[in-house]
């Protein structure tokens, strides 16, 4: 009996040895830095010459108009882009879910392909397509749809529209894959019964597909919200935050404060804490809303 116990204990100990390296690394590279960021947010100074300053950074933050602009921008992207993209992904997924659909494999691969591109590379492709002398303007002017080329990245609302178009292009297929996987778990006979009862395609979509996929819709909306709040690569390379900060994201503002101007690590850390709180709160709200509905 005693021997069995020591054997169990030995195995238990080995189990701990297996998980210790990974766990220690997560503590060092996630939990320690977030604590450091919290402490930094109470300090001011340039570079690494920092001193304690109480709530100074947080007071400054409340009066910072650039920060307000960047938060507004991110929420504009969030409110317009996420619902459009998720609706589109849902429609595409429910169309592709039909087993009799021709070219199904082709459609799936084609719609999923944008996920294989890095955020920087597709941002540059879209920047070139929508440049003043780019293909989109060439087509629009050739077809006489517009008289003069549109300066997409030069006007606040067209620049925002461009970010939204690009984000939708990159992430619709990604979300569609989640919905396709979810649809596979829905019993086909439910649809057949609805068809016999004379339910239209639209009714089947809103009464069967959407309610049954609710947990996955919730998951994808949390992921998209999270991603949009942390937007960086696209605004940096597609519009560079311009014009006049109209597409500046919060992450890019933090980057500017820390690495482009004289480094204000303390103040940047205070803002990064705001992102952290926003991500946490929004995920929490979405989870609660999803539960009660």
């Amino acid at each position, binding site marked *: 009996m005693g021997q069995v116990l020591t054997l169990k204990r030995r195995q238990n100990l080995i189990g701990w040895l297996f998980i210790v390296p990974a766990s220690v690394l997560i503590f060092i590279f996630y939990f320690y830095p977030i604590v450091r960021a919290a402490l930094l947010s109470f300090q001011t100074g340039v570079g690494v010459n920092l001193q304690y300053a109480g709530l100074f950074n947080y007071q400054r933050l409340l009066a910072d108009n650039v920060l307000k602009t960047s938060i507004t921008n991110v929420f504009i992207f969030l409110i317009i882009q996420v619902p459009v993209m998720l609706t589109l992904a849902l429609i595409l997924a429910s169309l592709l879910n039909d087993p009799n659909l021709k070219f199904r494999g082709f459609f799936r691969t084609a719609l999923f392909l944008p996920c294989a591109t890095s955020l920087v590379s597709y941002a540059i492709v879209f920047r070139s*397509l929508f440049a003043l002398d780019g293909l989109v303007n060439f087509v629009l002017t050739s077809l006489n749809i517009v008289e003069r080329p549109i300066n997409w990245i030069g006007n606040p609302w067209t620049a925002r529209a461009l970010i939204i178009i690009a984000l939708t292009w990159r992430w619709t297929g990604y979300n569609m894959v989640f919905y396709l996987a979810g649809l596979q778990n829905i019993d086909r006979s439910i649809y057949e019964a609805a068809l016999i009862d004379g339910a239209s395609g639209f009714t089947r979509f809103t009464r069967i597909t959407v309610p049954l996929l609710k947990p996955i819709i919730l998951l994808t909306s949390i992921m998209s919200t999270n991603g949009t709040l942390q937007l960086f690569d696209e605004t940096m390379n597609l519009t560079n935050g311009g014009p006049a900060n109209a597409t500046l994201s919060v992450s890019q503002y933090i980057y500017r404060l820390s690495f482009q101007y004289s480094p204000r690590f303390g103040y940047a850390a205070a803002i*990064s804490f705001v992102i952290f709180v926003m*991500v946490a709160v929004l995920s929490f709200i979405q989870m609660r809303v999803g539960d009660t509905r």
Partner: protein
Amino acid sequence: MIRRRLANVFKYVFLFAAALLSIFPLLWMAVSATNSSVDVVTGRLLPGTYLLENFRKLAETHNIGLAMWNSFRNALAATAASLVVCSIAGYGFEIYYDKGKDFLMRILLLSMMIPFAAIMIPLFMMVGKMGLLNTTTAFVLPTVSTAFLIFLFRQSARYFPPDIIEAARLEGMSELGIFFRMYVPIMRSTYVTAGIITFMNAWNNYLWPLIIMQSKDSIVMPLLISNLIAGYVTDYGMVMLGVTLSVLPTVIIFLLLQNSFAEGILSSMR
């Protein structure tokens, strides 16, 4: 009947339009890489003969070979380190399950809530203090261990038959031996999935190298193509060649292993 037929036609038109819009930017990118900047601007959509000329210009003005090599080295190092560290941890959490380890796992999962932007400044200061700026080690360290991968391997260890472990123990195999010689070969597909996700994330990572790779010699592909558009005049043929080269490895992986790739994306759902 006619209405249903019309709906059917509309469905295919919609799907083909969506598929075309999805592919077109990438097709245009690849075609433009073979055309001169003037051709690109004047809307040429057919492959041209400027590929070599574009490559010559790109290689003359930017160190594309070095950036490719750095990107490969960093991404491979990140993938290898992650797979070893996270898979052994995931296996440990599941096979030697007890309340203490379960509690630790729950805490580790909280790390997924932390946005990178919130910790990049402390990370940068840490790496700087360790004297690791511009190194592969600095690139790899923050992403070696992720709660996502540990969780993925823990889930796959759930399907690992306990009989195999018991039999191997009776034969006198060590616990580490069981992991390496039994679990790893059986779970090959999980490793492929995890490997694809990790490699792609590392290959495409932009913000972290932007901060820590400050010397010319440590440049990686995302930084290089980002630099391509920095000037006032853009040479579209050359830029699109650079972008094409930067997406080539990930697009090839995608086309060859599409199902594993989808599996990797979906694993955050379980």
